[in-house]
């Protein structure tokens, strides 16, 4: 067990380092923060401690050590289990007691709902014998958690994508995610970004159209689609008055809407809102956490070599030659995360979690009681005899127990 404890402490020490040095950044970042010491950080892999060989080696060693310990302990526990009660009955008295005290001890053990079995050398009071396997279950569950946890962290293929409502994303394996609609806020105006999406596998199997929001992804055949982020993009409709042709441009970054490269609208940015003072001057609001309350287009009109900077609002129209530019309400769109994992890994990890909780419960809350009471004294046995020992000592000392 000593080696196990040393490994645990080393893992804790490496984790401290990993929590204090920001992880997974570019070398330039470390050069900026740690100056001349940064080559050491990179050389020792301190920029990616938890994926580095030291951490992985320690975890593998701990798992091996744990396996070994568990095998040795479980064999001992199982072999001790044979004739357990009879062996306990043969233990010599560890403490002596008067008949009156023995009566109290028996009374106490009965009130703890211990069962009793008579043997030649005395009566054995016992309960929670299954609790002897608690630490085995705990250790086994830790092993399973490490193994399936590592798989659950390394196997998934994760892709982040944005998609405008009404459009689809097609994955490399042919799986398609259709975004039916999206909104940033709910009807009451609370931030609650959510999409309605549908997933179609390459073999044609299809999920229902389902609402997704943070904490409620769509889950279908090993795929999960998460509502991750959101964005707002400008939307400008360009109409050709001569041909009647029209096109809608969704604008996420600056763009020049022009057919000849000279005349047209230069789109710089879209702002969530503005404040207008008494003189008619605008101050633009640069950020907001929800929908844009009063969207403003920051544009430049390029005409005959001249540039005029203006602000445009949804509903505004600007005509330049044959072209009419109509500024629409902005388009809100989701940032989706698509994850593909073998479902079995997640299920096995979940089972390991349940087993770990159950193992710890068994270890700490179904502690076995094994007490032999003879005509002249008593003996306490089992893997954790402490509680029974203290209780009996208290009975002998004070006549009562309140452990």
């Amino acid at each position, binding site marked *: *067990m000593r080696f196990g404890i040393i490994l645990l402490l080393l893992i804790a020490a490496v984790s401290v380092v990993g929590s204090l040095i920001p992880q997974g950044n570019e070398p330039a970042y470390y050069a900026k923060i740690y100056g001349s010491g940064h080559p050491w950080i990179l050389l020792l892999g301190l920029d990616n401690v938890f994926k580095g060989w030291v951490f992985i080696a320690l975890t593998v060693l701990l798992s091996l050590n744990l396996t070994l310990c568990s095998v040795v302990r479980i064999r001992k526990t199982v072999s001790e289990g044979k004739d357990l009660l009879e062996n306990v009955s043969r233990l010599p008295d560890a403490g002596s007691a008067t008949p009156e005290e023995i009566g109290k001890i028996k009374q106490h053990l009965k009130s703890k709902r211990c069962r009793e079995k008579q043997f030649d050398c005395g009566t054995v009071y016992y309960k929670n014998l299954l609790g002897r396997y608690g630490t085995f279950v705990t250790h086994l569950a830790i092993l399973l958690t490490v193994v399936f946890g590592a798989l659950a962290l390394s196997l998934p293929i994760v892709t982040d994508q944005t998609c405008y409502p009404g459009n689809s994303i097609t994955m490399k394996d042919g799986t398609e995610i259709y975004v039916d609609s999206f909104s940033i806020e709910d009807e009451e105006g609370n931030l*609650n970004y959510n999409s309605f999406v549908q997933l179609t596998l390459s073999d044609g199997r299809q999920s229902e159209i389902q609402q997704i929001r943070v904490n409620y992804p769509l889950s279908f055949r090993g795929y999960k689609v998460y509502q991750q982020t959101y964005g707002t993009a400008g939307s400008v409709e360009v109409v050709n008055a001569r041909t009647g042709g029209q096109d809608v441009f969704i604008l996420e970054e600056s763009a020049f809407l022009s057919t000849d490269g000279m005349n047209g609208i230069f789109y710089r940015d879209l702002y969530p809102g503005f404040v207008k003072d008494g003189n008619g001057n605008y101050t633009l609001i640069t950020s907001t956490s929800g929908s844009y309350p009063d969207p403003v287009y920051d544009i430049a009109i390029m005409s005959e070599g001249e540039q005029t900077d203006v602000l445009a609002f949804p509903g505004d129209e600007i005509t330049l030659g044959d072209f009419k530019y109509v500024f629409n309400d902005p388009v809100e769109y989701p940032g989706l995360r698509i994850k593909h994992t073998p479902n079995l890994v*997640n299920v096995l990890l979940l089972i390991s979690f349940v087993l770990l909780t159950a193992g710890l419960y068994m270890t*700490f809350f179904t502690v076995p009681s094994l007490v032999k009471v003879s005509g002249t004294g008593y003996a306490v046995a089992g893997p954790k005899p402490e509680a029974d020992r203290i209780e009996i*000592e208290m009975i002998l000392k004070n006549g009562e127990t309140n*452990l």
Partner: protein
Amino acid sequence: MNALFFGSLILLFAASALQMIGSVFKKEKLSKIAWIVFLTAFAALSVFIVIRGFSAKRVPLANQFEFATAFAWGICLMLAVLRLRYKADWISAVAIPAAFIVLSYAALQPKEITDLMPALKSSWFVFHIGSAVFSYSAFIIAGCVGLRYILASKKENADELKLHRMDYMSYRMIAFGFLMLTITILTGALWAEQAWSSFWTWDPKEVWALITWIIYAVYLHLRLRSKKSGIKMAWFALIAVPVVLFTFAGVNTLIPGLHSYG
């Protein structure tokens, strides 16, 4: 509503002072008064938390103020259980001040009721944060019992049985805290997968929860190994408390990460 909170804080301070004086000068009566004052503070704090929950229309565990308040409440609850159920009167002199210190930390936090951010709107919320409250409280109480052990063991002709009971109680609190912390970590992993797609992101808060978990796993093993108990384990239980406090408050304020919700 703030009056209830600050009322509990003042009452806890009064109970701490009375209890300490009572313990140092062995004045039974003062200790009894301290106990009544403490129970009043505990009741007021409980009412405050319930009212806050109703006003916010959610479980009041969503920010550092609410969590710290629940943490102080958890310490009070465990102290009350240990005294009433196990007659561990000796624990009050350290546990009441501990609850007062944690509640004072809460008092320094912004107190307005805020809407839950989308990532917190989940059914895992109550299990994850609720188990963290009980786990931290149990570790703090274990540290308090450890401190009492250290003080009691210094006395000449110290009562061996009493020391043994203290040692065992500290161990039981750590065992309970360990189970609760395990639940915190596991539900956190399941929640992270639902919210962010990955069970574990090595976010500093996650890492420190793991470090705390490992430290207490070491305690449990050391205690079993060659049956080490008594003064060494009492020191361990006490020295581990700053680690818990760092995981609770230090990480959020000193290291940025996903858990920095304010």
